[in-house]
């Protein structure tokens, strides 16, 4: 668990004092049997204080906050996380006494109420007496103060930290079902449970599934017809090629990564200012997927794009700088008054995100204490923190703090800026000249050497008017000044730390031992990264992560790909491969995929083909109850899971079916200037969502998501997510029933259907079913639609005066119903 450091909670430990305190006198000095008087004093005065006020939080049997236990003599003598609390005979130097005196705000105990003055003086007296303590209970107090000590060798035995296995394809009986190596692993588990894979889905179903899966859009009528007509062996492969080559692929799969990268167009948290240049990172990701950038390279660029070998190629250089948006994109407490904490908080966010995104490990847990479940000691956390402490993420921390943005201007941008500066300087000069001429005239007229105050008021009227015109002109120019393109990112700091102190209990006020830059030990195999003294170490970290030997990177990523295709990861907890995460349902398959991924040069598109050209991916989803009993969660994949479309797919499908979708790619879409408040202190929302571009380009405002996104389980863009929810709640239904978006789409769809006035209604119903569901309607559905149109028209025609577009309204209502239906947003 993660205890959050807070800046005013009294802390039991204080570094400064650590330095002041001489080493405690060896316990031996007080180990002598205390005299009767001392014993009596302890029993009468001291023990009751401990029992009543201290041991609830400081005992060997219950909590041992700050590593301190006071219920035994040994614990008392050992002290807490930052050293001894007693200096026998010297109350002033004993932190126990300093704490109960309540003078130091960061060291006050008990936390909620001070002891009475007489209790404090009793404790002081007792320490002065040499702290006699007759307690003899022997409880072994370990060096760690009763805390668990991480056994690294034991930790390495956990499956996720083991090197990738080299699984052989399993032998299965149903060889006929095997189309891809994937199938052998799936079938083997099914056969062992005497389960049979579901039959193949119909071609229409498969095409709809694959098209939404790879592009986030419904298949077009022409594509359906072409596929149905293509009876060749590689018809499925050809569809995949077409889909993977379409630019809409990168928009859909790039968006998956943007979930992991907690992409947003605003900071959120306390000061919700615009990330006006975040879109460059978004476009970088879309393009990386479309170009099938090898994942290892993708990873390295995002952590250390600025540190890669210098290239003469400006476009490449800018691309790599843009990739660094990954590190800068997190929410930051920009108005945090405690600046040191502010910095440690965003470093923590960076570490936590890298941990979850690439390793599936919750590293943030080790900020305050050794990870409670995974073998990650605090030292490892601060080894990583040293790397990011040596990285420059923020330009300054003054309220509101400013994040760093590397410039990515092209020569023409710099030229444009230069030209503009010249132009505006020239205009300013005109003003200066005009004024000095006017001033000279004033001085000459008044026959003095100096100007009176506010000379402008005495200029001739036409000069004043001219001056105003010129000034307005300059002001207008200023608002239109070209900004030099910049992007969110980091660079190396000026102070490269070779070591960094562990922050005891996560607080920068209590520093522990210094640790060198490094990576989590439990994942270190044969090669340990060596850190360059001149650089932050991000490049070494990135290369270590992206190496074929890393036990987690490839596993975590292929598991993500599996999750995004099959709705459930082989490791169901996609972002947590640790002890508290799930165990893989098919460990051999996971390792086989990871190896294949690396062997294919970390190509994601190659993995799509491996996964999608399998029988597993072709299975039908509509199976009865029969299979559910032995595998209710479908972990063994005996059928394809029913999938609800994600928020963006729902929104894009609505527009696509209505013929409204604009496929323009990329560019800035946030209507707010960089670093400007999204709401300021007011609650007015300047962002609009009525664009008809793909949903991936709609602004992502933290703290105030587009309502359609929010309702349909768009993940919280403040944290990395590889596993979206698919909840069902009533406000979703309200949105489908009443929102402008759905009503407009329905109305547009109806208008298209009615364009050809001679088209019979039956034909129209057929067309709209094909468009919305990719299949023709049944006879029953046809009939039902016709009846609905009549019935609905009746509800309108009773209105007076009778509206003249009754039929069109009825068609709109029918279309809206089709769009609201389950078949529109659930894929078989």
């Amino acid at each position, binding site marked *: *668990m993660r*205890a*959050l450091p*807070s*800046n*005013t909670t009294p802390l039991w430990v204080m570094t400064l004092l650590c330095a002041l305190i001489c080493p405690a006198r060896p316990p031996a000095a007080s180990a002598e049997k205390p005299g009767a008087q001392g014993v009596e004093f302890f029993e009468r005065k001291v023990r009751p204080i401990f029992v009543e006020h201290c041991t609830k939080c400081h005992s060997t049997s219950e909590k041992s906050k700050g590593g301190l236990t006071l219920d035994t003599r040994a614990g008392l003598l050992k002290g807490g996380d930052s050293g001894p609390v007693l200096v026998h005979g010297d109350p002033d130097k004993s932190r126990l006494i300093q704490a109960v005196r309540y003078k130091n*705000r960061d060291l006050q105990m008990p936390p*909620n*109420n001070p002891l009475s003055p007489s209790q404090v003086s009793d404790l002081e007296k007792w320490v002065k007496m040499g702290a006699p303590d007759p307690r003899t209970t022997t409880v072994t107090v370990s060096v760690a103060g009763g805390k668990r000590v991480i056994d690294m060798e034991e930790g390495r035995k956990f499956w996720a930290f083991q090197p990738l296995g080299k699984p052989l394809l399993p032998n299965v009986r149903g060889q006929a079902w095997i189309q891809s190596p994937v199938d052998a692993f799936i079938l083997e588990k099914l056969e062992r449970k005497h389960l049979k894979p579901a039959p193949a889905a119909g071609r229409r179903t498969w095409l709809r599934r694959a098209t939404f899966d790879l592009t986030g859009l419904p298949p077009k009528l022409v594509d359906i017809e072409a596929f149905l007509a293509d009876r060749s062996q590689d018809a499925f492969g050809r569809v995949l090629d077409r889909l993977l080559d379409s630019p809409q692929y990168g928009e859909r799969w790039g968006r998956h990564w943007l979930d992991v990268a907690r992409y947003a167009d605003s900071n959120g948290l*306390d*000061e919700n200012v615009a990330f006006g240049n975040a879109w460059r990172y978004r476009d970088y990701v879309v393009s990386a997927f479309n170009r099938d950038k090898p994942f290892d390279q993708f990873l390295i660029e995002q952590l250390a794009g600025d540190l890669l070998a210098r290239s003469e190629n400006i476009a490449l250089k800018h691309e790599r700088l843009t990739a660094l948006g990954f590190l800068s994109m997190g929410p930051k*407490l920009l*108005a*945090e*008054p405690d600046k040191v904490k502010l910095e440690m*908080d965003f470093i*923590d966010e960076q570490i936590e995100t890298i941990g*979850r995104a690439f390793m599936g490990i919750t590293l943030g*847990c080790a900020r305050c204490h050794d990870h409670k479940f995974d073998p990650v000691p605090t030292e490892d956390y601060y080894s990583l923190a040293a790397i990011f402490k040596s990285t420059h993420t923020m330009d300054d921390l003054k309220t509101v703090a400013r994040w760093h943005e590397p410039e990515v201007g092209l020569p023409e941008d710099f030229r444009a800026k230069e030209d503009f500066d010249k132009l505006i300087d020239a205009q300013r000069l005109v003003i200066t000249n005009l004024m000095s001429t006017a001033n000279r005239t004033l001085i000459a007229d008044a026959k003095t050497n100096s100007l009176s105050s506010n000379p402008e008021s005495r200029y001739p009227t036409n000069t004043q008017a001219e001056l105003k015109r010129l000034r307005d002109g300059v002001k207008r120019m200023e608002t239109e000044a070209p900004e030099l393109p910049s992007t969110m990112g980091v660079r190396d700091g000026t102070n490269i730390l070779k070591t960094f102190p562990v922050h005891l209990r996560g607080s920068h006020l209590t520093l522990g031992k210094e640790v060198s830059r490094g990576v989590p030990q439990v994942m270190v195999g044969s090669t340990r990264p060596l850190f360059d003294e001149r650089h932050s170490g991000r490049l070494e970290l990135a290369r270590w992560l992206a190496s074929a030997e890393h036990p987690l990177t490839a596993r975590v990523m292929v598991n993500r790909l599996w999750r995004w295709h099959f709705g*459930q990861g082989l490791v169901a*907890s996609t*972002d*947590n491969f640790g002890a*508290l995460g799930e165990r893989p349902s098919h460990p051999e398959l996971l390792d086989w995929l990871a190896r294949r991924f690396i062997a294919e040069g970390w190509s994601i598109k190659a993995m799509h083909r491996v996964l999608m050209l399998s029988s597993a991916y072709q299975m039908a989803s*509509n199976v009865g*109850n029969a299979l559910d009993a032995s595998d209710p*969660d479908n*972990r063994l994949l005996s059928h394809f899971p*029913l999938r609800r479309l994600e928020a963006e797919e729902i929104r894009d499908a609505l527009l696509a079916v209505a013929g409204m979708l604009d496929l323009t790619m990329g560019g800035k879409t946030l209507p707010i200037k960089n670093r400007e408040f999204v*709401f300021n*202190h*007011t*609650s*007015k*929302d300047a962002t609009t969502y009525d664009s008809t571009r793909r949903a991936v380009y709609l602004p992502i405002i933290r*703290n105030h998501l587009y309502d359609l996104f*929010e309702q349909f*389980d768009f993940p919280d863009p*403040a*944290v990395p997510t590889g596993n979206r929810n*698919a*909840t*069902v*709640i009533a406000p979703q*239904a*309200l*949105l489908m*029933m*009443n929102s402008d978006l759905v009503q407009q789409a329905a109305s547009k769809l109806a208008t298209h259907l009615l364009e050809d006035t001679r088209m019979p209604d039956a034909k129209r119903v057929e067309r709209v079913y094909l468009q919305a569901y990719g299949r023709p309607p049944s006879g029953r559905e046809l009939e*039902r639609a016709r009846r*609905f149109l009549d019935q*609905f028209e009746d509800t309108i025609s009773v209105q007076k005066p009778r509206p003249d577009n009754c039929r069109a309204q009825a068609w709109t*209502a029918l279309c*809206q*119903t*089709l769009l*609201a*239906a*389950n*078949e529109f947003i659930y894929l078989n």
Partner: protein
Amino acid sequence: MNSKSNSEWLTRRAMLQKSAAGFGWLAASAMLAEPVGNAATSMQVSSRPLAPREPLFPARARRVIFLFMKGGPSHVDTFDPKPLLDRDDDKPFPGEKPRVQFAPTAKLLKSPWRFQNHGESGLPVSELFPNVAQCVDDLCVVRSLHGTNAAHGGALLKLHTGSDNFVRPSMGSWVTYGLGTENENLPGFITICPTFAHGGVNNWGAAFLPSAYQGTPLGNATVPAGEATVRHIRNSRLTLAQQRVQLSLLARMNRDHMQQSGPSLALEGRINSFELAFRMQLAMPEALDIANETNATRKLYGLDNKVTENFGRQCLMARRFAERGVRFIQVTHSDGDVQWDQHGDLRKGHTKNAAEVDRPIAGLLKDLKARGLLKDTLVVWGGEFGRTPAAQGGRDGRDHNPEGFTMWLAGGGVKPGTAYGATDDYGWFAAENKVHIHDLHATILALLGLDHERLTYRHAGRDFRLTDVAGHVVHEIIS
């Protein structure tokens, strides 16, 4: 609380902790917690995430109304009189100021308002709140709150979500997650005219809890309460009768589709969700329609007065939602700006702010009491922090002060007519019986019958809770 009921209560709690059976809530939590790390299927387990659930142990309060004063009302000018501050006006603060401060402050500034003891309890209230003062025997004034963040954003997030550095579910979401709601035709958690600034939606968001538990905003801080509504609650083109026709076609289509696709709780849940949405379309306008409220009631809330009309309407809506079974209702007092944030213009600003809320709040308390609702409705009043006893920017302003401030609670099982805890002699630091924000959260949950250490949700491989790893129930304020 007398020691007997305290120990009984604790015993029962301890017993329930050990017992393995009979937890309505725990069973529900097991159902709703992310199964096998994948919440995608959680709704297939429970298609009624908002179904009412029994608390862990007997609840003192069934619902919460949180009256949030945005910007940070000054405790030393309202509910925490400080004689030494009067005496030492314009002298330097004799103690050590906080290590981290939002803005520099100068010398001590005595309160411009007089305090007087009220009611049988004799609790002091300043002249800023003459109407609330009449209800003082119902209040439990906690004068020793302390938080951790000196800036609005961090402090709002801490107060509403328990965390000022990470995105976490809000208090109302936790409560709705723990207890469901008593009227599924209305949202379980409604926030009336919230502010989008300083955390915005995070302050009523569900974060990683299922979205069914997020707060439903009714308007926002820039919208007059009379115009506040829930998005998409009305169709602009179709009549209800026409929608009925649409929905019956939809239901038939969906049932056919389910025949084809095989049984699925998700598909079934979605079929039901349209029926529920249709009922919400009727229930929400009914709840918002105050046409049937008597003139006396309107007057009680100050609807007859321009100054109090807006907040009065918010409070009246809160009562109407409370009556209708909404579990957690937040009422925010905030204009488009930071309302109670008087770094300067303290006299003018606090006078105006108090005038806007005093009568409506008293009206709400009296009305709840008259209707028998106060006994099981917990009303909480307060801001994200208090203000410094030292002046800022001349002699008419105070800076943010998270180190010690006041909130009060009423109804729902708290000890009425009492004060708990104290700040130091000048009101800067909480000094006696300190109550951290985490402790407040733990206590609110306890009053609702929930154990803050056990109301957890598994997310990304970890069990999260509102109080993180902190929080102690303040048993002393529970009656």
